[in-house]
């Protein structure tokens, strides 16, 4: 009798325990679903905003490369050729297409439809091969950002709904579209150009190169410094008040807002050492400060994870401490250290605030050739474009974010690959 009552109590307890376990699982699943939901919404909105920036509306024009316009002197001098009036070539082609635009006002309106950078494309073509002067060429040239936005449906046609074009301009655009001369094509300027005031010519390449140089400097400094610090603290230093103090401060540094490192960089690297302002070199130095604590902490954790008997085995055979570290401990800790480094680099590539302080926020058109040239970085480019009023910069901001996210995803994938590939079991 008694024992069956006991069994019932046990069964009831068991039921409660299983229920609690199920509830706990449900909480976990719910948390993951919510997190994934937010991520999906975030990505979807960025992609929806940004995918159109990867194409650009272009117009096909038949250009008359008239020597009397391009090279009136006839000497084919490079300096003359590079300063020639290619805008006139483009404008003549437009006028030839729409002869009805005869008065000054109409011409201005017509010329406004094509990008102000269209003549640069013609110049590039002519400089590459001056022998084409005098011939007729068909070329795809970028339209102005406003036309681009109209074609992509980001801008209404009707002026009362925010449209910028008159009936006449709309008729020109429709005419071009009707005979297939107006098309959206892959936006090469986005991936080859530097920044520009004209959205249709603005590109990420300058920012990508700036970020690349910055990260190169960061990696070259923070990896050896971080690993050496971690190895010293973990394998050589004795535990005393000083090492405790250092450890606490490294952990504190990891939590310091990055803009503070930017201010430090401004004062030390720019004002004291007078390194070039806005340069990826200084950006990389500042990002080194930002990522160093992360790398040191990650490296120490990986070194701690190497089992102590590996060290004992090496020392027991008569290895010195340095040999123990270089032959056994470091190789075993390396996957973890690399993972931590890449995560530190991923943090550095997304860092904006400290770069603002050292002037990498300037408007820079040229793609930097060396780490000493003025440059900007990808996240700063996002910041700059997000602050630009033109409608066309909205999609470009999202596109820049997508490119940045792709870099981050690639870096994190590398980290996971390295961890999986070099992971050792014992």
């Amino acid at each position, binding site marked *: 009798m008694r024992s069956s009552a006991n069994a019932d109590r046990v069964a009831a307890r068991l039921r409660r325990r299983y229920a609690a376990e199920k509830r706990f699982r449900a909480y976990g699943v719910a948390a993951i679903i919510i997190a994934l939901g937010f991520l999906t919404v975030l990505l979807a909105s960025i992609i929806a905003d940004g995918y159109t920036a990867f194409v650009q509306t272009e117009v096909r024009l038949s250009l008359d490369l008239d020597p009397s316009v391009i090279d009136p002197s006839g000497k084919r001098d490079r300096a003359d050729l590079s300063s020639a009036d290619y805008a006139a070539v483009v404008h003549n082609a437009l006028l030839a297409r729409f002869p009805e635009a005869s008065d000054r006002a109409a011409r201005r309106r017509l010329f406004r439809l094509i990008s102000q950078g269209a003549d640069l494309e013609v110049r590039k073509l002519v400089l590459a091969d001056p022998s084409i002067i005098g011939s007729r060429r068909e070329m795809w040239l970028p339209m102005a950002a406003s036309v681009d936005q109209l074609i992509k449906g980001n801008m209404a046609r009707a002026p009362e709904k925010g449209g910028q074009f008159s009936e006449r301009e709309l008729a020109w655009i429709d005419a071009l579209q009707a005979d297939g001369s107006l098309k959206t094509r892959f936006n090469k300027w986005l991936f080859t150009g530097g920044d520009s005031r004209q959205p249709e010519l603005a590109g990420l390449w300058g920012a990508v190169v700036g970020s690349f140089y910055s990260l190169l400097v960061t990696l070259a400094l923070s990896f050896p410094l971080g690993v050496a610090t971690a190895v010293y603290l973990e394998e050589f230093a*004795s*535990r005393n008040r000083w090492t405790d103090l250092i450890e606490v401060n490294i952990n504190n540094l990891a939590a310091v807002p990055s803009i503070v490192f930017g201010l430090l960089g401004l004062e030390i690297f720019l004002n004291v050492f007078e390194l070039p302002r806005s340069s990826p070199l200084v950006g990389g130095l500042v990002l080194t400060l930002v990522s160093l604590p992360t790398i040191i902490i990650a490296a120490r954790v990986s070194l701690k994870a190497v089992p102590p*008997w*590996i*060290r*004992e*085995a*090496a*020392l*027991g*055979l*008569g*290895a*010195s401490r340095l*040999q123990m570290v270089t*032959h*056994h401990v470091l190789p*075993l800790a390396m996957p973890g250290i690399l993972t931590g480094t890449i995560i530190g680099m991923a943090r550095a590539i997304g860092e904006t605030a400290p770069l603002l302080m050292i002037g990498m926020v300037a408007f820079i058109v040229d793609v930097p050739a060396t780490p000493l040239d003025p440059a900007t970085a990808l996240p700063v480019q996002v910041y700059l474009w997000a602050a630009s009023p033109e409608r066309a910069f909205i999609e470009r901001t999202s596109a820049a974010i997508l490119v940045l996210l792709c870099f981050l995803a690639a870096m994190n994938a590398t980290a996971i690959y390295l961890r999986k590939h070099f992971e*050792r*079991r*014992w």
Partner: protein
Amino acid sequence: MSTTSDAYLRQDADAAAGMAKITAGDVNVHYGDKHALKGINLAIRANEVTALIGPSGCGKSTFLRCINRMNDLIEGARVTGLITLDRQDIYDRELDVVQLRARVGMVFQKPNPFPKSIYDNVAYGPRLHGLAHSTADLEEIVVTSLERAGLYDEVKDRLDEPGTGLSGGQQQRLCIARAIAVSPEVILMDEPCSALDPIATAKVEELIDELRENFTIVIVTHSMQQAARVSQRTAFFHLGELVEVGDTEQIFTNPQHKLTQGYITGRFG
């Protein structure tokens, strides 16, 4: 220093007779505030197996780790007294600890091969100390060591496979091969069979008996039967003190001390 050391040495008849490979005189070890070893005087003869027995925490492993100065690695450990190897003070400032560890090899409780190939595991020590002049030399050392550890026939076809892929008993014999590849004079074994099954244990014990011919062996063990089987001399430790030391047969059949008797008959421990 020499007068005091002689005084220590005289405490043990073997040491006085010059048969001792290793002597310990008034060795004290402190871990921070903890007094782990209290005034140990012990002589260890060459080409014999000396077993250190005693209940957990009695200091036998601590004493073992004094002999190759592995205690140096433990933060806060302090060793006083005199330990000599061939009448040379091993805690002498002049003495190179790396050289000492090349002369005094160690086999640990848990088999701890490096996560490298079997070959590289054994070749590591000789490479480290530059014992081989050529690849052929090195290969010979590796093969001889594996043969002496009784492992060669089992692994000869897979020397380039990871040492961590072997069974526990094979791993421990690999560790022994790795230790003897450096040609040490003394091998310290810290409960080498505690992680092994009885068959692997039997193989390692057999091996220990063979190795005695060329090496001086000090083994810490929790198994009284093992001590009785493999050792010629036995030292019984209790609460950081050396209670009794003598020929194994005498310790197990006619212990002089009440504590020893209690321990070996299983009354405590």
